[in-house]
């Protein structure tokens, strides 16, 4: 574990060091060498990739609720109302995880050429994130005691009341966990985003790639830190929420 932590933390530390170093840096638009301070470096990054950053945020904002809306009811149906072939379908829902992003992106372009790129991008991200939701919400549904719903109904709660008062509060931890996972994956997704990108429609990871190929290390490092900024809290939250207590349900 310790070794793994070191292996994961080292690149981040080096990147951080790079971003905050006062080495010379070259931007696409800078003419020749310039010595910069850290704030200038970050404002350069934000200026250059601001649009991509917003684009990424828009994609994530669409993907997170959609993935939950599609994945959670599907997970519920697979575990609670199994039908002939539901097992197979549930396994099939995981297949997109194994399809190379490149292939998926081409498939999306081919099958829906006139479709707005933004929504193609969202569709591509959904292919990778819905399986995660199905999996993690499915596990939560599995451990959820159906007698709690029976108890609610015996106490006079109808279908919606039972969902609102019992089922949703108890599945909320799993739903939040899924949302964070979806956020982390969608925010960092590169393959599909890169291929579906147009000059005006580029997500931040695709922008990062360009940074790596065209800019000097401090710029790339700073861009990476900007990219990591929302992911790290999300990952820490996922860790924190993975605890025993959380699985027993949140306070109402």
């Amino acid at each position, binding site marked *: 574990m310790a070794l793994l932590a070191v292996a994961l933390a080292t690149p981040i530390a080096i990147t951080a060091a790079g971003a905050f170093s006062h080495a010379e840096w070259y931007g696409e638009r800078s003419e020749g060498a310039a010595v910069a301070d850290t704030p200038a470096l970050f404002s350069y990054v934000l200026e250059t990739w601001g649009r991509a950053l917003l684009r990424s945020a828009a994609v994530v904002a669409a993907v997170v609720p959609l993935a939950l809306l599609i994945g959670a009811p599907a997970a519920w149906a697979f575990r609670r109302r199994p039908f002939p072939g539901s097992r197979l379908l549930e396994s099939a829902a995981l297949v997109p995880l194994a399809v190379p992003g490149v292939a998926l992106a081409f498939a999306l372009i081919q099958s829906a050429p006139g479709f707005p790129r933004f929504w193609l991008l969202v569709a591509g991200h959904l292919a990778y994130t819905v399986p995660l939701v199905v999996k993690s919400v499915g596990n939560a549904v599995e451990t959820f*005691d159906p*007698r*709690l719903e*029976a*108890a*609610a*109904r*015996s*106490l*006079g*709660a*109808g279908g919606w*009341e039972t969902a609102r*008062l*019992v089922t949703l*509060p*108890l599945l909320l931890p799993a739903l939040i966990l899924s949302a964070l996972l979806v956020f982390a994956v969608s925010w960092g997704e590169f393959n599909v985003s890169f291929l579906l990108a147009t000059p005006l429609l580029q997500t931040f990871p695709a922008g990062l790639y360009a940074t790596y190929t065209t800019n000097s290390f401090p710029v790339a490092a700073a861009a990476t830190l900007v990219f990591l900024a929302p992911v790290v809290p999300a990952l820490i939250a996922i860790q924190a929420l993975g605890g025993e207590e959380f699985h*027993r*349900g*949140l*306070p*109402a």
Partner: protein
Amino acid sequence: MKVLIEGLSFAYGREPVLSGVSMEIPDGGITVLIGPSGSGKSTLLQLLAGLLHPARGRILFDGEDVTGVPTERRDVGVVFQSYALFPHLSVRDNIAFGLKTGRRRFSLRSSRRRPSRHSVEARVWDAAALLGLERLLDRRPAQLSGGEQQRVALARAVAPRPGLLLLDEPLSALDARLRRSVRTELASLLRALGTTVFYVTHDQEEAMLLADHLVVLDRGQVVQAGPPLDLYRRPATPFVASFLGEASLVEVSVEEEGNGKPARTPLGRLALPEGSRRGRILVRPEDLTADPQGATATVLDARGLGPYDRVVLALENGVEVLAHFPPESAPEPGSRVRVGLRSRKPHFLED
């Protein structure tokens, strides 16, 4: 509430669980359904609750057919075997749950309205007081002991004052010592409530202690129903005899026409019903006493259990019978004793 069950059948897939069950749950009393595991007793309870739906048959609540009515609109309260307390709610909110739901808006009886906030609090308090939960109202179910959880489950079920209270082996999750003390409490509590109670158990002592009306279920069919002592003294089948307490069944065959004359049996001359030819007489352990004029028997095993001595006897024809002798009066194993029945007219099960 008086409940009538008519020809109820239910199957899980192709596995029949209940086949043509008909029975009555008298108004205001405690009806106990007893049966071994797999007899279908929990299924019957779930059918009454509306959590399962029968393939055939009807359920009538006070004469009204509720077979197709969903659980939330039936006038029932359920205490589940595992309690099924809401883990995310406090004890207070668990008990209040049934007082805040929509049932009353859809209730068939217009007199039952959704109570105001004030009366919700009052009713929660009443139910909590009834079960001694006043000091636990702010706890979460996970912070309660098994016995406390059981009481919360009961408080939650009775708070909305259902016409029919269903309890599915409510004590089976408790350890043996606790179960003993809780069941006496539960008996007086359920009687104090005055609600019609349907109680499912596989525990014979629990059944005898609680039941006003006892129903024995075996392999999806009602075998016998009636007052508990009637069933104990006069079981209809060997199954009922051995399921309700300890029983030895001694085979007898009547050689000549009885015409009122006592028949010769391994336990001496006994009065058997007119015209009986072959059958078994029911011998409860407490029926046998030392009797100088009685039948001879060999003591196979004897052990003092405290309240009584448990003695296994072999009758002349080799049939084993179990007897309870007064404390410290058991004969030595291997010795021969003379025993007789307390009653000259034992219960006879005809073949």
